[in-house]
């Protein structure tokens, strides 16, 4: 496969043709904040945290879904991007009910970690305080819509890795939410295999193992990449 050379933050980087800006950056050891990206499944460009500036393009592009091009000049850490990243995080917090102190993922939540890393010490927007429910109908797992950021990681994992297609997104805009089958209680779902991959994939406390404490609710998403690698490349890299 032909290699392409591009410039990220002043550093010359080469990556395979067809790679995304994010992949090229990871390979070159340049960190771009991500939330909806998950190793092992395709990217959706849902969270807008990996937005980067590309010289000559007058809008911001998501690094996870933009393919690299020869001679591309990318900036991943400018004043404008830092500002927008904080803004995006604040909007994520304001949209639903993210109460870290009462969340099972407190301390190992990707949203919380990103907010911390990006210096988000308060939210400048009015909280929406929507009334979302908690689906505790599944015997092993729970789904708290209040903590959901609609990154669709669970949807992609269920579709791409498990292949069951139990989860999907219903509705649109601020009213969209994660469903199981025909928006029925998770426990009534006939397609769900109870494999728990969606719980591993969730970056926040939206999907959790029932009855687990904050200390127990740690996830290891590398397991998902392990499965995909093993299945598709026949390489068992533990």
């Amino acid at each position: 496969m032909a290699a392409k050379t591009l410039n990220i933050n002043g550093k010359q980087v080469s990556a395979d043709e067809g790679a995304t800006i994010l992949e090229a950056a990871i390979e070159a050891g340049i960190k771009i904040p991500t939330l909806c990206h998950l190793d092992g499944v395709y990217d959706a460009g849902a969270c807008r945290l990996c937005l980067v500036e590309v010289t000559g393009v007058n809008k911001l592009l998501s690094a996870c879904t933009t393919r690299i091009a020869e001679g591309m000049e990318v900036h991943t850490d400018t004043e404008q991007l830092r500002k927008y990243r904080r803004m995006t995080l604040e909007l994520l917090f304001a949209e639903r009910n993210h109460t870290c102190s009462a969340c099972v993922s407190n301390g190992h939540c990707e949203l919380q970690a990103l907010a911390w890393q990006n210096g988000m010490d308060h939210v400048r927007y009015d909280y929406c305080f929507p009334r979302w429910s908690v689906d505790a109908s599944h015997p092993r797992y729970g789904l708290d819509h209040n903590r959901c950021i609609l990154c669709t990681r669970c949807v992609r994992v269920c579709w791409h890795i498990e292949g069951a297609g139990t989860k999907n997104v219903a509705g649109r805009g601020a009213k969209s939410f994660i469903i199981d089958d025909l928006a029925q209680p998770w426990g009534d779902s006939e397609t769900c295999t109870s494999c728990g991959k969606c719980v591993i994939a969730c970056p926040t406390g939206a999907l959790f193992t029932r009855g687990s404490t904050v200390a127990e609710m740690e996830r290891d998403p590398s397991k998902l990449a392990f499965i995909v690698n093993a299945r598709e490349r026949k390489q068992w890299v533990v």
Partner: protein
Amino acid sequence: MRAEGLDHQVYCRSRPVNTETTTPWDKTAVAALTPLQASDKRYKILEAHIKKYQGRQDALIEVLHKAQELFGFLEDSLLLFVGSRLKLPPSRVYGVATFYHYFKLKPQGAHTCVVCLGTACYVRGSDRVLAAIEQSAGIKSGETTEDKQLSLMTARCIGACSIAPAVVYDGVIHPKQDPESALAQLKGWLPHGN
């Protein structure tokens, strides 16, 4: 600011879905029609329509269009039927059906009223028209009156800005509406006749 219309109960049903009529993940790839469905001509027409697309999964939207045209709205058993014929998971069919405003998951009223809330109509007072209709009919936008006579909907610009504010009654566009003319038009469709 408190976001309105985010009441989860409206969108997430707590009752279990009746899956007796169709099982989408039937081992025999295409499940036979139940006696009830087999006696319903509309299922035959829908099946023929799906065959026209050779059961292609990317024809989901077209098939849902036809299903709604035949049945008036998309009930759970119908969504499961479409899913089983296109070999798609129920969640995908439901996700697509709820993404587009055109698809209705509940029975619609005999008459429809669409208030345009596009920018031009809005600045000319379509919000007041909508409020008057909502108050008079006792329903919110997106709902149907209890006697199933009127379904009230809103749209984001129907492309009739020169006659703003426009309201569509049973598919016919009416120009320059105000609360009085709108209520006069709805006379007879509303339960208490005002």
